[in-house]
């Protein structure tokens, strides 16, 4: 509102507050309707003396009365309108195959039309109030601030439908100014680089008459950030790969996972993805974006980031299976997003997999609140993921990243050593952390108790019948490779943990130590035993973890027993999942082979102050 004084706008609010009927809006219109278009016209009382754009500044999901007028040109924790990057495909028009370069280009913001009633729901209303005193011969233009101009589209409602507004050419005449006009705004992209576009968009109407500017009004909106799901949110749908060229090799894993998903009561169950890439966690990451809807609700678009991995699976550039975000995930209210730099370092490519992208659950530390949690990644100055992807994630500004060193790991993913589950504690969650020293102690104790000859990994094999995996406790304890790698892993994990503890304030009582040993591949560390941290939180009370395969002493698998007891104290049951052949021997576990869409939290991002 560059021309109008604060006093003038407040006066208008006060005047309108006395007028019967200038109240807030009603509930969210059911899907399929066109709510904004059918809202009752606003009757101005008294006739405004200036041109007046309105957006949902008070975030109640509607534009009605004058409650949206105050500070409509600002964006703060308390006020400011929101709009969405309209990248979904409400009418299922986009192709289910294509090249990396072209697949992302198809979405509902990629054309100059409103793609049906569902699409309209994804647009933010912008209303020009009727202006009875519009000057004779007045014309008006509407434009955007320079930074947002390439990233926004405005649609004008007409009797025939919706027309894309061209800020350089389109105008409104005096008659239109007198009658008022409905517009709808969408972003054509999310924030990719906050230094280029912060996500704020100023929409300004300029009124000219007699060759001079007579009036103007500006409203500010912020594009919704992408927020990734943390482990505490209820799973709504679980994903896992069935290997396309060898479907049978996935049978054991999928059967156990499905059983765990059923036990957890996941509403949409397990969805199989048929690709030749079993690392379902790695090639996409789920999240959402949202804007206020009536009744205190959120209008949500679900998001799947495609990993920035390059040169995997025979894709034209990016990891082939990642096309799933466009070919299998994108649809009504579902968005696929990719971001990569062709100059990213190939030797660090594994860090771009989303096993190396977790979200710490919400917490408060001192004066700092993280109600949507924080991203947790393996990244240090000398070993880091694709910087352009990191810049995009940082640009969302909602879940500031915690970074730890995973360069000592052969695969380099944070899910190899850390995870989170719900807990009956003041914080509401606990952290699972791999503890190789604890694993050694358990085996040492077993050996000293006379069980040194007990075998682990019984019946398991390292490579399609080529190597028997059976190994005794004493053999493990006598292995220089395993013992030295485990010692080094213990120190590295402790350093990771120190960073997370400092960032979150976690206490030792809030950390569950999970025993398994490490060994070496290509000079770096990998889990020797199935890494039981590397599981998936399926509900508040079910955690799916890889079967560690012993050792079994006195009828109990001592590794299973340890984790079961630790989680039982928090009301969480472990469902054991067979993943030796397809995952463990190839340096991954249950979490690496699964993914989830989760329930959107009640916390509204626009209220977080970030």
């Amino acid at each position, binding site marked *: 509102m560059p021309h109008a004084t604060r006093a003038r706008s407040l006066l208008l609010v006060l005047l309108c507050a006395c007028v019967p009927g200038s109240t807030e809006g009603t509930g969210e219109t059911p899907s399929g309707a066109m709510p904004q278009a059918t809202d009752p016209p606003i009757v101005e009382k008294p006739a405004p003396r200036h041109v007046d754009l309105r957006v949902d500044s008070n975030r109640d999901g509607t534009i009605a009365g004058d409650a949206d007028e105050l500070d409509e040109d600002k964006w703060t924790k308390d006020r400011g309108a929101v709009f969405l990057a309209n990248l979904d495909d409400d009418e299922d028009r986009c192709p289910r195959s294509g090249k990396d370069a072209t697949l992302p280009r198809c979405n509902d913001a990629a054309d100059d039309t409103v793609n049906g009633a569902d699409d309209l729901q994804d647009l933010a209303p912008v209303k020009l109030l009727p202006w009875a005193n519009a000057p004779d011969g007045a014309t008006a233009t509407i434009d955007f601030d320079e930074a947002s101009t390439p990233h926004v589209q405005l649609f004008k409602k007409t009797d025939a439908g919706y027309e894309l507004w061209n800020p350089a050419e389109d105008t409104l005449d005096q008659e239109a100014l007198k009658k008022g006009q409905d517009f709808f705004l969408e972003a054509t992209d999310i924030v990719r680089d906050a230094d280029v576009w912060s996500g704020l968009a100023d929409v300004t109407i300029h009124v000219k008459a007699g060759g001079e500017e007579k009036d103007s009004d500006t409203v500010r909106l912020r594009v919704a950030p992408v927020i990734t799901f943390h482990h505490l949110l209820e799973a709504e749908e679980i994903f896992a790969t069935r290997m396309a060229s060898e479907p049978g090799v996935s049978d054991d894993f999928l059967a156990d996972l499905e059983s765990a998903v059923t036990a957890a009561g996941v509403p949409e169950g397990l969805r199989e993805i048929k690709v030749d890439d079993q690392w379902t966690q790695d090639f996409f990451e789920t999240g959402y974006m949202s804007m206020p809807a009536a009744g205190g609700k959120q209008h949500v678009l679900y998001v799947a980031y495609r990993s920035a991995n390059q040169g995997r699976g025979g894709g034209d550039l990016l990891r082939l299976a990642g096309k799933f975000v466009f070919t299998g995930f994108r649809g009504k209210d579902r968005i696929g997003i990719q971001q990569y730099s062709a100059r990213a370092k190939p030797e660090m490519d*594994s860090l771009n997999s989303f096993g190396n992208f977790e979200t710490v659950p919400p917490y408060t530390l001192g004066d700092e609140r993280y109600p949507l949690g924080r991203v947790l990644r393996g990244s240090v100055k000398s070993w880091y993921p694709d910087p352009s992807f990191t810049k995009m994630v940082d640009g969302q500004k909602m879940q500031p990243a915690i970074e730890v060193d995973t360069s000592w790991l052969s695969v380099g993913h944070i899910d190899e050593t850390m995870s989170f589950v719900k807990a009956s504690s003041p914080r509401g969650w606990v952290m699972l952390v791999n503890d190789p020293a604890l694993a050694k102690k358990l085996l040492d104790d077993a050996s000293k108790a006379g069980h040194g000859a007990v075998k682990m990994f019984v019946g398991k094999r390292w490579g399609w019948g080529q*190597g028997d995996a059976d190994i005794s406790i004493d053999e493990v304890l006598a292995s220089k490779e395993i013992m030295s790698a485990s010692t080094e892993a213990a120190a590295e994990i402790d350093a990771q943990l120190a960073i997370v503890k400092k960032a979150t304030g976690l206490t030792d009582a809030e950390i569950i130590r999970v025993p398994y040993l490490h060994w070496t591949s290509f000079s770096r560390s990998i889990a020797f035993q199935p890494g039981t941290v590397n599981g998936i939180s399926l509900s508040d009370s079910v955690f799916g973890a890889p079967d560690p395969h012993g050792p079994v002493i006195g009828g109990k698998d001592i590794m299973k027993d340890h984790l079961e007891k630790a989680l039982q104290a928090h009301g969480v049951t472990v469902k054991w999942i067979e993943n030796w052949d397809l995952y463990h021997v190839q340096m991954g576990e249950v979490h690496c082979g699964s993914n989830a869409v989760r329930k959107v939290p009640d916390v509204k991002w626009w209220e977080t102050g970030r």
Partner: protein
Amino acid sequence: MNGTLLFLALGALPQGLVLSPRALPPAVAQRLTLDIAAAKSAAPATFSGLQALIAQVPRLDAQKRGDLPTLTPRLSRLGPDALLPMLEAIAFQAPARAAWTESAERGLRLSLIEAAGMLRDARAEPVFLAILASDERDFATLQLTAEALGRLESDTAVNALLAAATTDKRDAVLAGMGQCRRARIADALAIALDGARSPAQAKSLVRSLAHAGNAAAWKLGGPYADEARAVRATAAEALLRAFIAYDDEARDAASNGLMVVDDAETPILIARARVLADAATAAALDELAQRFARNPTR
């Protein structure tokens, strides 16, 4: 077969995956050829087993989670009998690998070197020496070869590693030679760490030195157990100097290294260093002392 005939036969042999047999001293090549032939006759299953495993590499490559497919865990669990089949593949006869990707081939090369080294069998020493002396310049190949040779811990290995550490292969050799838990190696790594040219190089050297001083490895003994005290003391002192010299990843790595080495003198070293330290470093040293007191590796 007499020596001349064997030499002629060697001339006709195909190339190994990493090395030509001609890169080996003739006598060594002769002996290994005979050993391989005898083993192939006595235990053909080990050779065919390795071949079957190698045949899986393209699939492992297609399904890899990290940057390269790895066979190291599988190969190292095949046991001592797998050494000669692996040496054959490395230096005498590369396995058939039509239409393999570059990453599949690279993954196999590195896996064979690493797994053969983990067997700690002196029969592999000349092969590793030859790779180290070859024109090979690939960092990972040289690092893993240095590790493999280092695991043998022989005087020959020590001399070769120290010599290679003065060549243009220096960085890769230094990064790998910490697997050689010998006093002269620890001394050389300590000197290199003191003179590191960058934090990234320092971090690499810190990790190598931590391998050398790894307390868990030393607890399992070995032929040079009498050098344990010297190696761990040298490592601890150098790691502490690095901890003080850097304030980034290299410092964090040095802290981890000190935990891994777990030398009993560490608290005393920290206390001494603290006397001359500025306030910020003193505070960091205090944290280090606290961490060591509850050393997470124990």
